[in-house]
């Protein structure tokens, strides 16, 4: 608890930089999923990524003989598994009577169940595959295990995703707000949909090492839901969500470093939830307090005829 800032050890710097970067990227990317009302899609993607992570590990071991737990190997696996599970869920709900929720849930069962299956199998191998013990950490996250190389992976993948978001800002915006209209402009909706999916998967993949596949959803949805309360502009919302995510990430890393045995992931999530709760209460106009006050000052006078849409 007594560690002053000057004595920050280099590992903590790496970890804090990593969680901050993860919070920033997932906060920003989560906004679009939130606005498309696909908050829980991120949950399915992150759970599914486990199969990709373990699968990539096994495949790398089988091909090269040496086991690598570097993100450069595991991230492509997670990207493929996450995208595959989403695409399968989409095609099931498009082509059968099952609704989105059910098909997403089934894919979660298959991919996460399969991931666990494979993970336990890997752990049973004898002689043991070196490095397999770290795979377990993807379930609950292990921010402390982040290396400098991992940090670069987070920076480059996250930076790439944010850059794409920036470049295609107006296309993604009009597609999210009014898909039919964007199609009438000639925007390729299928490809934009795919891009959104890829961005979401990228956001998930860089975060799972830090907070784990189970809690990843909170880094996508919670900062976005909090940010939405403060602003009526998409750009501000994305910037705010990124800042909220960054604050929760940095705070979580520092807090859990100060108290031995405190897992980083849950602390990050609870910080983000606290920000959400405060936003729900305090935000101007949309906040509960502001609305209660507005109702009181309005008194018994009837609500204005205009602005009825709420």
């Amino acid at each position, binding site marked *: 608890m007594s560690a002053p800032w000057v004595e920050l050890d280099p590992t903590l710097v790496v970890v804090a930089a990593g969680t901050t970067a993860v919070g920033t990227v997932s906060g920003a990317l989560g906004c679009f999923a939130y*606005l498309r009302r696909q908050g829980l899609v991120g949950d399915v993607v992150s759970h599914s990524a486990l199969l990709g992570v373990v699968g990539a590990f096994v495949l790398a071991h089988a091909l090269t003989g040496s086991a690598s737990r570097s993100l450069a190997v595991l991230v492509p696996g997670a990207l493929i598994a996450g995208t595959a599970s989403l695409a399968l869920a989409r095609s099931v709900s498009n082509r059968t009577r099952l609704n989105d929720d059910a098909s997403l849930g089934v894919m979660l069962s298959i991919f996460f169940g399969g991931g666990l299956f494979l993970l336990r199998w890997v752990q049973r191998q004898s002689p043991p595959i070196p490095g397999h013990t770290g795979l377990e950490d993807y379930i609950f996250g292990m921010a402390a295990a982040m290396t400098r190389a991992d940090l670069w992976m987070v920076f480059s993948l996250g930076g790439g995703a944010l850059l794409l978001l920036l*470049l*295609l*800002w*107006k*296309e993604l*915006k*009009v597609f*999210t*707000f*009014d898909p*039919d*209209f*964007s*199609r*009438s*402009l*000639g925007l390729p*909706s299928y490809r934009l949909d795919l891009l959104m999916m890829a961005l979401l998967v990228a956001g998930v993949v860089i975060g799972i090492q830090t907070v784990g596949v189970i809690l990843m959803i909170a880094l996508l949805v919670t900062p976005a839901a909090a940010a*939405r309360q403060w*602003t*009526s*502009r*998409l750009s*501000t*919302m994305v910037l705010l969500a990124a800042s909220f995510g960054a604050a929760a990430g940095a705070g979580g890393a520092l807090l859990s470093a100060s108290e031995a045995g405190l897992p980083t992931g849950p602390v990050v999530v609870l910080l983000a939830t606290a920000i959400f709760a405060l936003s729900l209460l305090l935000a101007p106009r949309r906040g509960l307090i502001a609305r209660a006050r507005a109702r009181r000052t309005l008194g018994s006078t009837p609500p204005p*005829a*205009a*602005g*009825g*849409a*709420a």
Partner: protein
Amino acid sequence: MIQRRSREGSTEPLALEVEGLTVTYGKEPALWNADVRLGRGSLAAVVGPNGAGKSTLLKAALGVVPRVSGRVRVLGEDPARRRRLVAYVPQRTSVDWDFPTTVLDVVMMGTYGRLGWFRRPGREERAMALGALEQMELADLADRQISELSGGQQQRVFLARALVQDAEVYFMDEPFAGVDAVTEQSVASLMGHLAQRGKTILSVHHDLATVPRYFEHAVLLNRVVQAVGTVKEVFHRGNLDRLYGGRVPADVPELAST
């Protein structure tokens, strides 16, 4: 590739030419073998019962839903090549009006097609959007969050967005649905104004009583096209009884009983 074109003498291409258009979402076709031809400057209503494929006709003409069969020509070309000359006004209720954006922002989306990929709207686009808002009498709401608008104001925002597109052909999906009297007047006068300038309008319309007042042409649709023509020619009791299976929904006083 032999293209045998045996069209009547006019050299100017039709605004909209739809042949053999069939669209199916599930088992039953939503639209069957539809032929619709509209000359430039037409002001046409698409009329028919619920589930008659009215919105589908618009979307297929825009080339945004896949079609089983059919050829669509907008001003003589494939709709994909006429995007810049076409404006689409979707149903007001098809979007989330709680989306974090402002009125001006939504209207500026009308410039996105012209801007192309990557380019951001600038001062010029902003000025165009403001001009369109002015025209729809919404200038003072430019910076308003869209969730604070009334239904009529939302509709006028959508129309302003279409105006910014500065198109030749306008597809509108129920622009009169659930709007106040002021908006109804302004939508009607906008349509008339556009048609006078030679623009073509095809609009899904629900209120049978106002068809003769606001439109010059009508497309009677119930999965198949029953009739296309001027309101005088096709919009009569006999056709409507057939269209609605003998149950014309509202009292339509202005109909001649011919």
